[in-house]
């Protein structure tokens, strides 16, 4: 009897822990409104070469379902999909992959978006507020299975199927 009650209590606590997933900071913190400056060294811009080490930057929106879905919306609104399609690439390189030309860590992605890259990637710095850049990064990372499964959408707005399945296919985890 007592074990049962304890079990129920533990389950309830676990349930509360899941609330984090649905947390919505709909009003971005003023510190995240800035148009971001220079985080990367210019010598990092060497396509295909070794990536110079980046400071470890934590995406403030890691694991937040709301911000990942906002990132998905902005991915289309700002026409990232125009070149990268739904992550599979087209005019631009695919975004579902293991080997990134300019690094796949959040800080690398941030620099890529804010400063642009040679051969076509425009610099979005000075245009998009910082919190939206982080939301887009959270979405891109979710396409690569780098976000908790609980926070990613079970289906995309576009015709693409479940991104996690694609990642698994790319990595050869499923048939």
């Amino acid at each position, binding site marked *: 009897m007592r074990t049962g009650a304890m079990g129920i209590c533990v389950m309830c606590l676990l349930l509360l822990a899941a609330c984090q997933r649905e947390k919505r900071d709909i009003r971005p913190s003023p510190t995240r*409104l800035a148009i971001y400056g220079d985080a990367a060294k210019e010598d990092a811009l060497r396509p295909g070469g070794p990536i110079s080490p980046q400071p470890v930057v934590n995406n403030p929106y890691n694991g937040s379902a709301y911000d990942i879905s906002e990132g998905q*919306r902005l991915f289309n*609104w700002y026409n990232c999909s125009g070149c990268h399609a739904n992550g599979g690439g087209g005019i631009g390189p695919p975004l579902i992959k293991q080997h990134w030309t300019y690094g796949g860590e959040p800080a690398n992605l941030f620099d890529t978006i804010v400063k642009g890259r040679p051969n076509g990637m425009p610099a979005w710095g000075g245009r998009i507020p910082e919190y939206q850049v982080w939301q887009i990064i959270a979405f891109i990372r979710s396409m690569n299975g780098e976000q908790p499964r609980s926070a990613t959408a079970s289906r995309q707005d576009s015709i693409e199927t479940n991104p996690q399945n694609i990642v698994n296919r790319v990595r050869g985890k499923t048939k």
Partner: protein
Amino acid sequence: MKNNTRQIFSTFAGVLGVACLSLLISCAGHQQSAVDPAGPQSGRIDTLWWSFFWLLGAIFVIVMVLTLMTLGRRHRGFEQEPLEATHKPSEETDSRLRRIIAGATVTTVVILFVLIVASVGTGKANSELQNKKNPLTIQVTGNQWWWQLEYMNSDPTKILVTANEMHIPVGRPVQIRGISNDVIHSFWVPNLNGKRDLIPSHVTTQWMEADHPGVFRGQCAEFCGLQHAHMAIWVIAEPEDKFDAWMRAQLQPAAGPSTPELQRGRQVFMNNACVYCHEIQGTTAAGQNGPDLTHFGSRRGIAANTVPNTAGNLAGWILDPQSLKPGNHMATIALNSTDLQPLVEYLESLK
């Protein structure tokens, strides 16, 4: 004692009836009311509504009176012996009961049938328009949380795109083509017609016609997310010549900035995130995600008519959209005070 109960009952019923009636009568003359019709479609709905009201109200009163009568009726009481289980009503009582029950059943079925015919007839009459000459077609696109309006024309240079404020000519049928960009919304201007859902990837149509000039408020009628309650539209019915003048003015590209201050405002608009989502015809701004701002200054409200269109409200909205309409999709951008003032002045100058 018995008299007291009866008095309380009748007073209560009277007060309730008067309250309901005054509530309904106070709706008349309002900008958002289904019982203040401004066109043939809403007129039919109004007639149907009141016939339902009087018929069902009469039935309600009759049932209540009969109930009160049974309460006040002398009953067998303690003084009399209870009826035996084997007691059988007389032939006369039996046939009377049968007649009453059969009559009530037939009356109920007939009344329900009449109501169905009236309701279906109204719906059918509203979905088809007798007067179809020279209709105006407007495509209404639901977005989280605003309305895009596209005035269709066979001449592509005369297609007008605007948002959140619909002008229609009096006495001319208007066809609403409804569609949605994200979730299901519902277009409802109660003074002109009933609701019509706007569904992604599926066009729905609705006809409406205003028979006198007026300003009517519409509201999204299908829960569509955080700011469903702040998704309003103004419909302005005006005489044909006034409508044509409005249309001509709206089809013009945006006025160029006439002072250095306005020029600065336009520059701020073009150099910030504004330009990715909003279109201003006649400039390089061609974003399609948010409302078209070509003639923003001529509109009555901002943020889908959440607040009136004044310079103060606009400045507050641009600086912190999430405080006025939490969860909306406008980007929060950091603006210098020296940039904000010219930007607001420029947008308000887009008459």
